[in-house]
Every structure is written in C-alpha cells, then in structure tokens.
C-alpha cells in the first residue's frame, strides 16, 4: 500500500499537524518508504494468532475508588502557556 498526497494531507489533519504545501511531496516519499519497508509483514501467516495485548502476563490492578490526589490547582496549571483563576485558557470554542 502507498499513500497519495491527498492522504498525506488527511493524515496530517487527523494528527493535528499543519503542513505546508512544500512539505507534502517529501513527506509522501518518506511515508511510502516506511510503508514499503513494513510490506514484508503481509507474507507472514498470522491465522489463528492472538494479537499481543500485554507483553508480560499481568492483570491490571484496580485501586480503591476514592479521592487520593488533587487540591493542587496551582501545580496543575503552573506550566500552562495561558491560565487564569486556576483554568486553562484556550481560543474561543463555542460561539
């Protein structure tokens, strides 16, 4: 499989990466090189093989359903590019 330029633009949109027109063709070439590299996997017989979900056999632990962290608004927002009164500020989302 290989990607065309429209697909490159669509994937960039899905990944929330702005792409200049000049970037599209080189990126298409690089992505196709990687896709060609992984093509070999198509020949592997995976019939009846379970996909791996956990590399070490383990059962995910559940913790008690209690509040055990929090009350740290200043710490949480400390690194925000823009914040006010303990909230993160973003461009207007709802008109």
């Amino acid at each position, binding site marked *: 499989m290989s990607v065309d330029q429209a697909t490159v633009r669509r994937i960039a949109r899905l990944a929330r990466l702005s792409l200049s027109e000049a970037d599209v063709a080189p990126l298409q070439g690089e992505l196709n090189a*990687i896709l060609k590299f992984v093509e070999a996997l198509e020949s592997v017989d995976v019939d009846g093989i379970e996909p791996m979900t956990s590399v070490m056999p383990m059962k995910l632990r559940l913790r008690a359903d209690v509040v055990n962290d929090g009350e740290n608004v200043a710490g949480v927002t*400390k690194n925000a590019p823009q914040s006010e009164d303990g909230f993160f500020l973003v461009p207007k989302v709802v008109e």
Partner: protein
Amino acid sequence: MAKLDLNNLTLAGARDSLRARDYSAQELTEAHLEAMEKARALNAFIVETPEQARAMAKAADARLAKGEAGPLEGIPLGIKDLYCTQGVATTAGSHILEGFVPQYESTVSSQLWRDGAVMLGKLNLDEFAMGSSNETSHFGAVTSPWRRQGSNVALVPGGSSGGSAAAVAARLCLGATATDTGGSIRQPAAFTGTVGIKPTYGRCSRWGIVAFASSLDQAGPIARNVRDTAILLRSMAGFDPKDSTSVDRPVPDYEAALGSSIKGKTIGIPKEYRVDGMSPDIEALWQQGIAWLRAAGANIVDITLPHTAHALPAYYIVAPAEASSNLARYDGVRYGLREQGRDIVDMYEKTRAAGFGKEVRRRIMIGTYVLSAGYYDAYYLRAQKIRTLIKRDFEQAFAAGVDAILTPATPSAAFGIGEKSDADPIEMYLNDVFTVTVNMAGLPGLVVPAGLSAEGLPLGLQLIGRPFEEETLFTLAQVIEEAAPKVGLPEAWWG
C-alpha cells in the same frame, strides 16, 4: 603525592571510598562538575544543575558522617532528560516541551535520590527518544567522546540515550539513567564502550518518564562496567502502584549475583542474527564471545528464532502507533509551547507543527495512518499478532533449556554525525535490528563492550535473558568483560 584522580573511578570504587572517608561526596561532586563544564563541546547535557548537586553532596556527606549512607550515597549521576525532575526543566529533547518544569519527580529518579545519589544535570537525547544517533534532539547532536583512530571526524554516541552514554564514557558522571524502546540504552552503550541494560518490561516504573511507546518503554542504567550497572539497576527497579504495568516482585541484589559460576549454563546462538551486510568485525566478535563463554563452562547451542526478520518492520508499526497516541497530549494547552491560531484547531496544528521536529512528525504521521479507519487491521492488528509470534520464538528457546542468548549488539560501530541520509529513514532504523526484538518480547537485554573495530571503535555484544532473570545477564556479562581485551575509555580531547 599525586593528586587523586576523582574522575577515573568506578561507581563501586567511589561508593567504597566514600564510606571509608578517603574523600568527601562534595569533593567527588566538584570533580565531576568541573569535568562536565570542560566537556560542553560534547553537548551531552541539556541542563546542568550544579547548585542542586552541591546541596545533595553536602547532605550525602552528613549522612556518611553519621554512618547512615544509602546504597548510592554521594554518587554523581546524570539523568536522561526524559525523566521528570521536580523543579528542574525537562524537555524530552523537544522544542514543544521547552520551558516545562515538572511539579513532580519520576519514580525511578526519586529512588536514586532516596538511595543518596547526586544529580549533576539532565542529559541530551533524541527528541522524545525517537532516534538512533542523538541527532534529532532540538538541542543539537551529542558528539561521541570516541573518535576513529587517526581521525577527528565527529561521531554519534548512538541514541536515543546518546547524552547518557557519552557522559558516562567521557567520565562526566559515574553512571546515568537511560530508557529503551527499541534499543535506546543498548545501541549507545555499544557505540561508546559502556554497559547498558534494558530490564524486563515492568521491572522499572515508567511513572514520570515522558512516554514514547508505552508497551515497549523501559528505564535502565548505563555505566562503565557490569558491576556499576548492577548496582544502579537495584536502586532503579521496584514496584510502583502509580504505573499499572509495574510488576510487584522483590528486587534482587544484582551485585551479589556477580562471580557466580556459569558452568552448565546454556547459551543460545540464533542463526537469524547473522544478517546481510554485517561487518566482519562484528561476526568475529560474536565468535569470540561464544568462545569466552564456552571456556567458562557454558554449553553453546544453535537456536532458531524464525520471526526475527519481522521484528523491525512490526516495531515501526507498533511504536509509531503508540507514539501518535501518547503525543496527542502536546496541544499547547497544559504545558510547553503554544503558537497562536485563528481558532482552537488552528492553534493545535500550528503548535504541534512548530513544536515537533521532523522525525517525530514523521512517526506521528505513520502512527496516525496505521491506526486510522480501514487500515487498523491490516497494519496495527497484524503487527500485534506478529509480536505474539516473536515472543513465542523466545519462549520456545527458553522452554528447550536455553538460559540466555548471545547476539551482536549493533550491525556496525559508531558512524559519523550527518553520515546517514535524512531522506531515507529506514537506513537509520536498521541500527536497531538486533535490539528491537527484545522490546517486542518484553525481555531483559544487556550490552557489554567486547572489543574494538578495525578503526579502534568499541563494539558490544548483547545478552538476552528470560523474564526477570537480569541476574543471569549480569553474571554472564562479567565473564565476557573479564575475558575481553580491555576496551578502555577515550582520551579527553575535548578540554
């Protein structure tokens, strides 16, 4: 009396001398701060923390005086800048996290401070640990302390833990933390003549370490010999309820395993690791390694790991897929860079395009593509099935009685900065051909220096073990370390 050389110690030696009060933790730290400052040309550190180091060394001296020394009391270490350090900038080698100051400490680094270690600073790395040469760092490439014989061409230290490996080899610190997703501890260790171990998945907590590919990422140490590496892993490993994949089992005293007999151990030699284009130096080194282990009493058996060739392509589906998901959090809202946009989506897109470097953007794109509707089964699901097959290969070898597997660490010695073409990402990816299988199977893997290339550069061998049998790897690695001609350390040409 000649001035005591405090920059040419082993970690174990420094630990013992500090306890004997031969010198103070503050003297040892000063010597390393000076070395770090003189070695700025290597660009191994992104952030230097001399004030913190002095305060920690002073506290270490107080504990040493009271006889309350921890296992790493007063030992100066470097921390890969993928580990969040409270109050100290953490960048992951990326512009998008520039200026980020964590409000918390990663579990692994907190255990090092608990045991008395001293932090010298944060070490350079490939951006978000994506690379095999440390050239993708936003803060510039790291120059290896090693050079080819009779040449002053700047070489890469490997990656992604390039700063860690370079700093350890250049004697700027006694050991360093690193992380390994596809070979990022072991390949730089091989390139710099140092020892590195990627422990079993779940052995070290991932909490507070910037995530790349969560099902593959593991923390581990790099140091100048096997014993020092074993000492560091004991402090770094352990159960952490804050990491849901952390394994709750006791941490052995890895150092105590050193020196055990390897008589009767069965070492597997996988024929699939003999790849086209492998340098004759590497092939010879591998044969030499086999001979050393045999001479020490190990049984050598040929084994087959038939799905080996599929590991690297499958990795380049699984790792980018997980990365595209993990890196979705960098959106200009909660931390790091923000670029202004005409609306919120435009803000996200501009921030991420400006904040991520080329290799990271490329991997996010591939990851997004293989997870997108219509392609998920063909790529991601198939890769996860192949991962099951790769792991099964190892399980069959272990079930047949193999205790550990010996392979080359890398297909070649270190290459020059800028030598690998940027337009063909695959050329760089091939560096990890021998290491990536271990991450795919979650197993422990250790790299130990074993010789020099024809050009005088270090070469390493890799030992792969059964899950949670890191002790066996340390024991075997020390046999190789003792049998091998001394690789040594590079001359300090940098200042």
